[in-house]
């Protein structure tokens, strides 16, 4: 297989002007939805091609066509000028096409080199694979220990493993699907450096699928913008700017305030962060605050398997109407903190007090009953039940609302659900639509609607905008702000610093399961936070 790819790479290597991949008139329907509508795309050697679009714009589908996960209904594919059909990922691999997936496809229980070797045919030679992993690591600056267990790695390191896995097959076309959604800013930076190198030195073609504008602007040579399954614009990156790209992508003007967070723009001017209209409202909410904090976390410790301290002596007070941001590089206890407040893990020490009353953490539904609502980090993990209907998902926490004597009334269920669907503008075919038929943004709205419907005193929002498109991020950000104004204490756990800086009144930084710093919004800048996150100024 490796022979075949090198041959191919050799055969087509005649400079950047020759297209490596041509997708012509690709059309793909899922039921009544047209995911791709007559899409053309041409990729060149030594170029990074950005594909920009909201969730559901069809960019992932297009890439799946390219790597053989989805068969198009119409259209043709040419690789190195030769027409071909790509029936499955194996065929794509033989043509030298590889993809780094948005969601990791790694096996947690295996080591790094084992994961890299996974899917190879023939006998497994551990020494050989290890050396190869090490060599690739060195060559591209993707440092990772070949013998580390993947489950113990941070998101950034896991992605490195994915990339190494990809590069090991020596593909000449590399597809990255939303690669930075789980990375810290520095990690993203590093990733793009690697990409540059891969492209410049080795004449590979790279596709970068993303909905982050700055990323596409910084890292690509050419940009294709997709909306609702069609290509709406295509231009060289030098001729593009944030505003025009945003317009093309969303198809409408986006409010300036959310734009910053939505597009993950790194350059936030100090002046912009002055309290604005929303701040005054919040001031008035603050005056009504009682002395009792809505949520008090006292000396909390949670041990993981093997006794590692996932949370170590965490103390945190959260007042009504206040938004406290929890910043930190992912994998430093944020997930456990979210789980703790979702009644999913018991405590090994300390206590959690909601409105003056201790909560027995870890017993089913205790936190929800105490008035803690949660938008979980991974909604598929504990936020929704994909195989149930929208209505059922909306009533998960409190089915008794729609029940009499333990029997749920169909009409009440539908009524309540429809009302929530309207209020939160959830895009679905109706209350009885299965949840998996909704887009990520709409699934997230279902979670938000349900959690807010419980009229909580505390709202925990963990990575609430991850993987959402611009419109959905804007909506979520506004909702969180309004919720706080309504007197709810909001704990915002996020690895997107811009998001935290935009929303939070107060910021705590977590590192290795501990709180390593606390800043008011006025004190906090990207630099100070970054230093704390990196553990430089504890």
């Amino acid at each position: 297989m490796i022979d075949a790819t090198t041959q191919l790479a050799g055969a087509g290597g005649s400079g950047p002007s020759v297209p490596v991949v041509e997708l012509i008139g690709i059309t793909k329907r899922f039921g009544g939805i047209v995911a791709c509508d007559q899409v053309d795309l041409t990729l060149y050697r030594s170029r990074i091609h950005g594909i920009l679009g909201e969730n559901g714009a069809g960019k992932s589908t297009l890439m799946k066509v390219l790597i053989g996960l989805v068969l198009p209904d119409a259209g043709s594919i040419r690789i190195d000028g030769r027409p071909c059909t790509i029936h499955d990922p194996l065929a794509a691999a033989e043509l030298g096409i590889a993809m780094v997936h948005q969601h990791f496809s790694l096996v947690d229980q295996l080591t790094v080199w084992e994961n890299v070797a996974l899917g190879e045919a023939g006998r497994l030679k551990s020494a050989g694979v290890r050396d190869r992993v090490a060599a690739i690591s060195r060559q591209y600056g993707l440092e990772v220990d070949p013998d580390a267990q993947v489950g113990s790695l941070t998101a950034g390191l896991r992605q490195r493993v994915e990339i190494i896995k990809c590069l090991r097959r020596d593909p000449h076309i590399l597809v990255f699907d939303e690669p930075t959604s789980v990375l810290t800013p520095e990690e993203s930076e590093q990733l793009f450096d690697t990409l540059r190198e891969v492209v410049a030195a080795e004449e590979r073609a790279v596709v970068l699928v993303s909905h982050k504008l700055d990323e596409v602007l910084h890292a690509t040579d050419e940009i294709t913008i997709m909306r609702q399954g069609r290509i709406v614009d295509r231009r060289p990156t030098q001729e593009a700017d944030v505003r025009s790209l945003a317009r093309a992508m969303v198809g409408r003007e986006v409010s300036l305030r959310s734009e910053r967070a939505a597009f993950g723009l790194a350059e936030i001017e100090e002046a912009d962060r002055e309290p604005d209209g929303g701040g005054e409202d919040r001031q008035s909410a603050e005056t009504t605050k009682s002395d009792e904090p809505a949520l008090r976390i006292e000396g909390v410790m949670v041990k993981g398997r093997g006794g590692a301290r996932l949370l170590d002596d965490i103390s945190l007070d959260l007042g009504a109407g206040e938004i406290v941001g929890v910043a930190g590089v992912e994998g430093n206890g944020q997930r456990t903190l979210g789980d703790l407040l979702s009644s999913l893990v018991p405590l090994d020490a300390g206590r959690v007090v909601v409105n003056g009353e201790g909560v027995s953490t870890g017993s089913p539904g205790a936190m929800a009953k105490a008035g803690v609502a949660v938008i979980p980090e991974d909604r598929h993990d504990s936020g929704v039940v994909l195989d149930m209907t929208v209505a059922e998902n909306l009533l998960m926490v409190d089915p008794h609302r729609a029940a009499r004597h333990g029997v749920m009334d169909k009409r009440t269920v539908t009524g309540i659900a429809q009302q929530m669907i309207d209020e939160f503008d959830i895009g679905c075919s109706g209350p009885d639509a299965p949840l998996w038929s909704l887009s990520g943004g709409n699934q997230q709205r279902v979670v938000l609607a349900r959690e807010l419907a419980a009229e909580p005193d505390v709202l925990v929002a963990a990575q609430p905008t991850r993987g959402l498109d611009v419109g959905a991020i804007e909506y979520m950000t506004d909702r969180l702000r309004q919720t706080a104004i309504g007197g709810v204490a909001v704990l915002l756990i996020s690895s997107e610093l811009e998001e935290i800086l935009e929303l939070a009144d107060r910021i705590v930084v977590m590192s290795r399961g501990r709180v390593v710093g606390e800043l008011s919004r006025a004190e906090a800048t990207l630099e100070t936070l970054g230093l704390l996150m990196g553990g430089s100024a504890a």
Partner: protein
Amino acid sequence: MLYALSVAVALALSSVIVEATGGDWWPVVEALVDGSIKAPGRWGETLGVAAPLLLVALGTVISAKAGLINIGQEGQLLVGAAVAVYFSFLIGGPGPLNVVVLLLFGALGGAVWASLAGLLRFWRGVPEVLSTLLLVFVATQAVGYGLKWQWLLLADEASRGNRNLVSEQLATDNRIPRPDVFGNEFPVTAYVALALALAVAYVLARTVWGFRLRMLGHNPRAAQRSGVSSTTYGATALAIGGAFAGLAGAAMLAGGGFSFGNYRLVPGFSDNIGWTGLLVALMARERALPAVVAAFVFAGLRTGAGFVNSTGVESRITDVVQGLLVLALLVPPAVIFLRDRRRARAAATERV
């Protein structure tokens, strides 16, 4: 459609096998149809078999909805029957009332047996797939032991004659009535089973309890967060599953009919009804109402097979035919399951 195709393939294969081994194919088909529904009194017989199958399947459906894989129905059924017969003779009492007592203790016996697996699961984390299965063998041995001792299950000498290992026979008025309907006789438990199927379907679809049980089965972490205790709900679901199997055992014991020990508990009494009930649930894809149809189909296969043996075709060959038909009934649900999952997955990844 899928079923028709799959059964047709199985029939075609069977015909080839029967003809190739020197048998006659058409009489085999006729015997199957005659034995299951066509011959006088046969569909009543089939219903009599379908009732316990349906009960077992309903229990399986409930456990499965909670995300638990109970495959020990054969043992739960046997224990249910044993407990039922023991208490029936211990308590005595007038006929109809004793039948109710018998059925209740049957359900209780099955529930307790399944709860052993529940206890291991939620106290010690032993996978219920293993514990329920292994408890089948324990049950067989335990009931065998009980049948050796007169103070437990063994009948006294006068009534057992020269047989070993049989329980006392239920008195005529302690049996479940088998009224005659259009020349077919079957125990009234068939109606009870049908009513229970409706009840299970209703409870799962409409009640808060059923809702939360399904939530637990689909996503335990979301359920935990929403206040569904996996221990309480899971253990209850397992116990109910066992109760249904035990009830089936008691109903077989007191219902009489085709090969069910003639109102006595004997070794091997469960006669694969537990296993087959599991297949019924599988064919119904763990839904209560389709299980009604599936139970009748499997029961028909069983009663029909009795007639096939008299066609002169070698019994091993007819076993193969039966096996092929069972397989034909189980392939479509598996195909549908895989297709649905692939679709759901494609949709989920498409829309992330």
